[in-house]
């Protein structure tokens, strides 16, 4: 491992028989050093006026010595990040069938709306009278989400899905404490083995122990096993619906009854709401709370890892415990409840985030909701489910679906079809990269072996799906034809080939530093 500036290392023209690798560029695939390596002291990318005369009032604590930031002009910065962008795959480029992530088209209208000066330049602590439009928007998004889920209340502030989980689980904890008049004895949360990692992690950061419920042979919660675990120390259950196998949990009503009779609450992970939006109101199924990833169902962009937004709808039982702040509508228009002592009858469990939530994501989601309308959203669910079932039906005779029957918005395969081929799920996924696709989600959920979870979303065309299916079938043919070494070597056409993750973790280099660079150059 090194910080060498020699970016052509490893590409030897002689070995490839190619010309043109002086700097490692290959046609339009351009190598790009670290920003720190194009540092040109004296260059600058921003012009600022002189400050003029002023009294220095930093208390003698002004910075001395260099920070170590690089100096780069605007054209070089633009080129640097443009080149970097070209090393990424993205929805704008092609199918992104990453199960559980709902990588749908991100309309640019959303981006235009969030940049309206009236939203972008509003400070969160302006006098309420000056930001009525902003409150109206938050209230509007809240109303849509309550309508679509059939739930009476909502907490808007959580920053993403996992944060929404935290909000819901804390509300459960607060409701139990309130009911028992002190710290609850109920300290166990039931979580299916197919759950996303954030579910057990959330329960734990909220002080609960996690008890795993097995899935049954149909990829659903084993209701009998669940019922047997119910006791007076159970705080609640966290169920993802549609679940991470891409299946609807048919026993929701029974599960709700059982958990409620046992004195616990029902958390629903709504990450997969896209499959049912406009067709099913989770509130009709007896849940107490559910987070909604606006960055999945409501098309706000993933941005290479975030930001997101994770509003949580709440039942009447949990609503009083929702965290501050929230918007209220009174005679003088909208206002904000920001302090627990101004909460009246409500008993907020606290505050989860600075200010009022992910406003920019609310604006984007609202543009998306209005564009689709209630009719369009129902069509979203229909098409998302149709696309997933279409892919499943086109692949089920060559790959091995894990469960029988129709799926929801994503279809799950396992690696039985790769048995004796010498090709693993990982190899298969890496071969997809060379074919121009982002792979499906791999090795998740954990309940099937070598999982491949394909979520096309409703924004893929039939033509796009047919091309994807053709690629998948061709790869299966190659795997079955005994070409495992090609799979093991894949990818070969990507900006980087397989990376050494073991060394990265064993000897972590997590930042650029002048010392390491100097040491390397000296060698």
């Amino acid at each position, binding site marked *: 491992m090194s*910080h060498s500036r020699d970016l052509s290392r490893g590409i030897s023209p002689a070995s490839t028989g190619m010309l043109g690798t002086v700097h490692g560029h290959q046609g339009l695939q351009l190598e790009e050093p670290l*920003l*720190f390596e194009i540092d040109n002291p004296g260059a*600058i*990318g921003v012009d600022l006026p002189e400050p*003029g005369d002023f009294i*220095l*009032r*930093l208390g003698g604590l002004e*910075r001395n010595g260099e*920070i170590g930031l*690089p*100096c780069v002009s605007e054209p070089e910065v633009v080129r640097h*990040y443009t080149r*970097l*962008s070209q*090393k*990424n*795959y*993205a*929805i704008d480029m092609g199918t992104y069938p990453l199960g559980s992530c709902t990588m749908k088209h991100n309309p640019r*209208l959303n981006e235009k709306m969030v940049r*309206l000066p*009236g939203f*972008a330049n509003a*400070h969160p602590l*302006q006098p309420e009278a000056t930001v009525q*439009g902003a409150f109206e928007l938050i209230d509007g998004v809240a109303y*849509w989400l309550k309508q679509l889920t059939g739930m009476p209340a909502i907490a808007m502030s959580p920053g993403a899905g*996992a*944060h929404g989980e*935290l909000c819901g689980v804390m509300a459960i904890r607060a409701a139990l404490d309130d009911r028992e008049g002190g710290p609850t004895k109920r300290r166990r949360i039931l979580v299916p083995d197919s759950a*996303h990692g954030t579910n057990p992690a959330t329960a734990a*950061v909220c002080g609960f122990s996690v008890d795993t419920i097995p899935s049954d042979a149909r990829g659903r919660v084993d209701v009998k096993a669940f019922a047997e675990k119910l006791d007076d120390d159970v705080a609640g259950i966290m169920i993802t619906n549609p679940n991470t196998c891409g299946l609807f949990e048919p026993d*929701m009503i029974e599960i709700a009854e059982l958990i409620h009779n046992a004195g616990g609450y029902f958390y629903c992970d709504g990450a997969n709401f896209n499959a049912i939006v406009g*067709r099913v*109101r989770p509130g009709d199924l007896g849940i107490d709370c559910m987070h909604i990833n606006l960055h999945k169902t409501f098309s706000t962009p993933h941005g*290479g*890892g*975030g930001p997101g937004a994770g509003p949580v709808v709440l039942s009447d039982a949990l609503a009083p415990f929702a965290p501050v702040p929230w918007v209220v509508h009174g005679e003088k228009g909208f206002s904000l409840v920001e302090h627990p002592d101004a909460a009246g009858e409500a008993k907020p469990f606290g*505050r989860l*985030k*600075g200010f009022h939530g992910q406003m920019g994501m609310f*604006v984007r989601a*609202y543009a998306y909701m*209005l*564009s689709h309308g*209630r*009719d369009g959203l129902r069509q979203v669910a229909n*098409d998302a489910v149709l*696309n997933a079932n279409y892919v499943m*039906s086109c692949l089920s005779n060559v790959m091995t679906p894990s469960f029988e029957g129709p799926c*929801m918005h994503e279809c799950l395969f396992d690696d039985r079809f790769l048995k004796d081929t010498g090709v693993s799920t990982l190899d298969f996924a890496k071969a997809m990269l060379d074919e121009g696709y*982002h792979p499906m989600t791999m090795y998740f959920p954990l309940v099937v072996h070598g999982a491949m979870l394909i979520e096309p979303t409703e*924004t893929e065309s*039939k033509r796009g799906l047919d091309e994807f299916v053709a690629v998948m079938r061709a790869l299966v043919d190659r795997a079955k034809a005994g070409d495992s070494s090609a799979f093991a070597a894949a990818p070969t056409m990507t*900006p980087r080939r397989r*990376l050494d993750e073991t060394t990265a973790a064993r000897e*972590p280099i*997590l930042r650029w530093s002048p010392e390491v660079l100097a040491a390397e150059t000296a060698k």
Partner: protein
Amino acid sequence: MRYLPLTDADRSSMLDRIGVSSVDDLFVDVPAVGQFDGAFDLPDHMAEFDVERLMSAMANRNITTADVPSFLGAGAYRHHVPASVDYLIQRGEFLTSYTPYQPEISQGTLQALFEFQSMVALITGMDVANASMYDGATSCAEAVLMARRVTRRNRAVVSGSVHPHYSAVTETQAKYVDIDIDIREPDLDGTEDLTDLIDDQTACVVVQNPGIFGHVRDLSSLASHCQENGALLIVVVTEVVSLGALQSPGAMGADVVVAEGQSIGNPQGFGGPYVGLFAARQKYVRQMPGRLCGETTDVDGKRGWVLTLSTREQHIRREKATSNICTNAGLCALAFTIHLALLGENGFRDMAMLNHARASKLADLLEAVDGVEVLPQAFFNEFAVRLSKPAGDVVNALAAKGVLAGVPASRLYGVGTDLDNILMIAASELTSADDMDALVDALSEELS
């Protein structure tokens, strides 16, 4: 519908292929009570221009910091974001990609994250930084949880210099995991001394610099006191531009620095999304929350980047993870990185000094106004003033005159405390001489 590529002809041929007659047949697992066939009280789909019209009208019902002179801060700041930042983060390859779990086709996001982590470490004076948290306040809460893991102690002291949203979020996240948290009274005059509260049971001390009322303080003696007692010093920075002018928290002896990165690259946006910075000393890296990007090589020996040390994270470790965070603030971190790249060493420092100069000038002017007392001696770009009247009323009155005068302390602490007359006033590189005059005139009139 413009976002849905399937035509009715596509749909029926696909249903044929699947072998069902209607899409309803695919929803057979939904119990009858769950099949919603009523009508939502919501509108039907709209043309793009109708959405635009409706939402623009809503946006226009706000009077914002760009419309009138504005002096709001308290954790969110108005700065100029260069046009190229917003252009670059809207490139589809950045905007519409997922978390870089497939490193071979995500080197762009990964390298930018590595640059982000490097920059955050440099400006905070820390060894390492993660790939971002939701915001400064959640970053602060995570730091306290980390201090508990590191020290195996469960007492946290939160200074009265800390933004009330940050202490509230920290308190909320601490309360169900048995952390005993001591939130100190608001430190209005910047003289708080925490040393007596620190002992061998203290997991961490959280202080903010500059403090919520603007005071800039030397933290080095507090740092050594923490160190002697084996407690972690967590320094909160809500205005990250200050790091261009002030000694870094690392240089003063911090163990962990958590910050709100909004000021660099990101609009005020009515409160979010922002970007939480989380930086720490190297020895804590395996206890840190959130994603980390690390350098490595590929099979051809070429340098590249991957997400690393994932065994800390929820997708691997589940209930034993260091945090439940998954989605973070990637795109806001990218905006931060690009803006700081444009600024560079000199631009960052100059921008910081310009902010300070504007605030210092404004303080001079305000000191001359009857009924206004500037409180901190040393500050960066924001300072508290004591008014002769309740600040909340003054702010409302000035808003009606077209001046956004700042954040009344009552907005953060509630009405009816002895902070009712305190107003927090911020300036930035965007504060013009005319803006300052407008504030001075309006305040003089209101307080006379």
